[in-house]
């Protein structure tokens, strides 16, 4: 029997079968790799927290172990991790905010006085590669280390001298919108952290 390829019935059946098969294979593959993906997502987060806190690690397991030793606080849905170095506490807060193109998630670590930044690292960002995407680069993140921010942080192009006390860091040329977005996110995060820790949070 010869099948009429152009008949409506054949077209419908063909479309259905082809779509079903391809989607089935994809769903199957997705399921197979889901645990891997989740593991690496989690690792990105762990790594960002440790980097921001300035804790070194040499392997995945090492990082995981050190991460589990941190104290965890909860405040209005934001996660705060506490690390104690020489009797002094360092807080690392996970932030979520919108950048120029998509969400920017990361970790901001602040010393006990809630004014000195210890470190910063990003978990995910979708900024323009080569411009806004450079917030992931070392030189940019390193600027924050030890920066004192009594009031508000400013990410500014006019930053010149390397003064750690003025609450200003150098912006990325050509990525003004990302720099501004990040400035807002970090100020909001500092604000959240300050209200959380000065207001008293419950230990988990």
């Amino acid at each position, binding site marked *: 029997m010869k099948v009429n390829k152009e008949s409506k019935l054949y077209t419908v059946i063909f479309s259905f079968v082809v779509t079903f098969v391809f989607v089935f294979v994809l769903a199957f593959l997705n399921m197979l790799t889901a645990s891997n993906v989740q593991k690496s997502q989690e690792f990105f987060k762990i790594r960002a927290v440790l980097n921001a806190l300035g804790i070194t690690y040499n392997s995945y397991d090492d990082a995981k172990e050190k991460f589990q030793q941190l104290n965890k606080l909860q405040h209005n849905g934001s996660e705060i991790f506490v690390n104690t170095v020489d009797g002094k506490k360092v807080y690392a807060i996970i932030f979520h905010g919108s950048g120029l193109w998509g969400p920017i998630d990361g970790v901001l670590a602040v010393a006990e006085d809630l004014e000195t930044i210890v470190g910063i690292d990003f978990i995910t960002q979708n900024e323009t*590669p*080569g*411009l806004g995407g450079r917030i992931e680069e070392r030189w940019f993140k390193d600027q924050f280390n030890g920066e004192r921010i009594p009031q508000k942080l400013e990410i500014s192009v006019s930053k010149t001298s390397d003064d750690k006390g003025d609450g200003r860091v150098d912006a990325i040329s050509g990525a003004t919108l990302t720099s501004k977005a990040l400035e807002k996110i970090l100020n909001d995060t500092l604000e959240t952290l300050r209200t959380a820790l000065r207001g008293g949070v419950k230990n988990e």
Partner: protein
Amino acid sequence: MSEFKKILKKNLWSENQVLVQILGICSTLAVTNRMLNTLIMTLGVSLVTGFSNLTISAIRSLIPRKVRMITQVLVIAFYVIIVDIILRAYVPEVSKALGPYVGLIITNCIIMGRAEAFAQGNPPILSFWDGLTAGLGYMWVLLTLAFIRELLGFGTVFGVKVLPSSFTPWTIMVMPPSAFFVLAVLIWVIRGFIIRSEIKFTGGEKK
């Protein structure tokens, strides 16, 4: 010259997707500011073009004409998602660096162009070869562009600093508009070269 060799030469040179057919320009503008990103992206495109050509060619006698294009898009999307899943699961670092670009492979006109123009009417293995080499033709052009843009925009090649630090990076080279200029100049030079060699070959007469 065997069929395979002919296709290779066409796709890499005389009928290059980017230089001659001016396809895949959107991604050319977007990804060519870093060589590493360009390399991974074009590798993805080559594999996706190859395999989607192979699949479409293999089922081409079963596809009703009415849903021909839908089927092609489905197959292409299928392979792109596979590439994305593999990158996310096994090389998360790369997947993170590429961000949304992997998904954008679907919109690359070269893939659909090859599926429609070649795979619909040719046997599977030949179609696979055509897709793969079309991707490679795209790859070398984009890598050349990326080399120029990264060198002038960052002073680096594959992230390794090669120009002295006294060199002032050209910010324009990092931004998409520069790809227009660089690509246009590249097309001009290479097309000029191809036309000149054709004239020499045919003695100035039209083929």
